[in-house]
């Protein structure tokens, strides 16, 4: 028993703030939302138990639920890889040499600073309008572009472009990761005459794997939960013609516009499970491609 305590004491001591926060602040609301997902709850009167009704309705009768899933999956599959490749590429460019890189780092982070502000919403609608700047550029090449943002066939891509353009946070994390790779490894490789691309696959990729893994997981989670930018660009309703009906936008409206917090909670738990499956798969696969320094034997 005593050994058990001495073995576990340091771990739990350091984990204490998190444990307090989790059990006192976080766990309760999460369990509450799970409970609410089995109720009819309009946020004014008390919740009423309805069993599996919400879930049954969702899968059997709710057409918009499927539409929201469709939109969200499309977005995740397009935006996550695009953003990560963008972020990694730029981070590697900014990592090497050049003293002036500080200013570029700041500049490349700027779009992410503007986040999902009202300015971005107005700007994006102007840029991708029929007579917007994007089409003006395209007309140089003789292309007559559609009204990107209000055409249901193309509106989702404008959000993907936004995601690519706001690659600041994964870029910064990549950069921190690249900076944590010991320089002498590259120097040694240089002396051995290893060509740059092999340095990339032999040194950079394996040592960056934990960070790549982090970005992959977190960006996927974030993409599934994308809310603010879409909400503000589509004026809160997923228009045109539900082509921007992201899952969380749908969930938000079910909860706060239509007073169906119970149903929204059920939607949330379905999304949670979807994300958990993806994250779980990522963790499983990581055994094969992510190796940690301190666990290498």
């Amino acid at each position, binding site marked *: 028993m005593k050994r058990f305590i001495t073995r576990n004491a340091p771990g739990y001591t350091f984990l204490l703030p998190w444990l307090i926060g989790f059990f006192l602040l976080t766990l309760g609301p999460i369990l509450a939302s799970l409970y609410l997902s089995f109720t009819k709850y309009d946020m*004014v*009167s008390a919740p009423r138990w309805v069993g599996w009704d919400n879930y049954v309705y969702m899968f059997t009768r709710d057409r918009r639920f499927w539409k929201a899933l469709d939109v969200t999956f499309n977005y995740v599959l397009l935006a996550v890889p695009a953003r990560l490749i963008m972020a990694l590429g730029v981070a590697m460019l900014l990592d090497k040499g050049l003293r002036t890189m500080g200013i570029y780092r700041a500049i490349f982070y700027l779009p992410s600073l503007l986040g999902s502000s009202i300015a971005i919403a107005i700007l994006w*609608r102007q840029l991708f309008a029929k007579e917007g700047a994007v089409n003006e550029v395209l007309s140089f090449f003789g292309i007559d572009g559609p009204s990107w943002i*209000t055409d249901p066939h193309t509106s989702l891509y404008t959000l993907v472009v936004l995601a690519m353009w706001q690659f600041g946070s994964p870029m910064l994390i990549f950069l921190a990761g690249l900076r944590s790779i010991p320089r002498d490894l590259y120097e040694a490789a240089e002396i051995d005459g290893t060509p740059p691309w092999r340095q990339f696959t032999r040194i950079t990729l394996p040592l960056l794997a934990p960070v790549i893994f982090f970005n992959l997981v977190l960006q996927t989670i974030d993409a599934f939960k994308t809310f603010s930018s879409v909400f503000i660009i589509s004026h809160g309703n997923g*228009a045109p*013609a539900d082509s921007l009906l992201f899952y969380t936008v749908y969930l938000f*409206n079910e909860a706060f516009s*239509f*007073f169906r917090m119970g149903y929204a909670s059920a939607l949330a738990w379905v999304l949670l499970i979807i994300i958990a499956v993806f994250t779980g798969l990522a963790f499983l696969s990581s055994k094969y491609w992510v190796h940690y320094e301190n666990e290498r034997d």
Partner: protein
Amino acid sequence: MKITRRTLLGTIGATAAASALSSVPGLAADRTIRHYWWGNPERDKRTFAVIDLFQKHHAGIKVSGETIGWKDYWTKMATQTAGGNMADLIQMDYRYLFEYVRRGALKPLDEYVGKSLMVGDFDPGPLSGGVVDGKLYGLNIGSNSQVLVYNTKVFADAGIKADVINWTREDFPAICEKITSFTGGKMKGSDDLSTSVDIMQVWVRQNGREFYDADGKVTATAEDIAGFWEYWAEMRKAGVVAGKDKTVVINPPLGETGIVTGGTAISQFWSNQMVGIQALMKDKVGAAMFPHKKGGAYGQFIKPSMFMSLTRDAKDVDAAIAYMNDWVNDPESTKVLGLERGIPCSPKVRAALKPSLSDTEKDAVAFFDAIQDRVGKLPLPEPKGAGEVYELFTRSASEVVLGNIKPAEAAGRFIQDAQDIVDRAR
């Protein structure tokens, strides 16, 4: 680093609590009421001024003014409602009133009327807009009506002399055509209003029906809706209203509407929004009714643009009612408020405001006077789920505008789905 984690945490907690506590209302005055409204800089300025006036007149009552923009207002409101922590007095919208009343979040005002809430000389019509299921749940703090706002300069330049109060459904396409051809297609006649729930409702009323009956049954017919969508489809085909890529944007902010961007000469609003639109435009704007059906009704109605409501969580009801009463009666307060929230219900207040109105406000009042004899009765209170039906409508209309579905087919499906939504919400 000398400071340990614990002392650091302690100090932080203390300073945070102290700085936050100092601004918690209610420590100084012994009676406190909270008033929560959605606003903008102008409205906030006026409302805080009224709060100051009230506190001066009623020493001992402190009013905590809480404000945020429309979109965030309802999220916060729902959260506070769920937590049982609603402000004593809240600003209510006509569309949300029923939702909140029917769920038991508001208290009726009837017992105070004539005692501490003096509304005896108010216009009965607009006042009754706050009645749900026989009880008064919302005090009208301004009225408005549907309005087509048009660009007077373009109308004059194109030589259009229309009677914009009495024009008909048949006149409208011709005028749109004239504007479009006058500007060489650069400016279309009007926004395409086929996604507008407000105008659809007017249209249905012009046909002699209401959208819902008293039991919450959808009484508008598929023919009404199909006719409405076909009306606009034809103008769309003729190219005299805004194109589909403009129309499928739902609830654009004022700044992105056709009349403000110069894409069209006519857009649809509520009459209390006129000042806001004029502020965004160089050309002078005018107010028109939606064209009526020849020989039929005008379809429009005057409704409360905003209410003040007493909530379930109100503690000091007397103080709250006193505040409400000052809002609609006190000469100083009503003067500060002006027409910003809509046209006041009290004839006395209106008369007192008359001399100090701005040009646009004068136009709004003139429009209001002109439509008085032409508007119909207020529609009956809507059933639960009405908000969702509205969204369904805009969505279905978008599909029609995009050409994904024929108006008649979409209309049939819409009426069916609308009824389902109302039934599900019951």
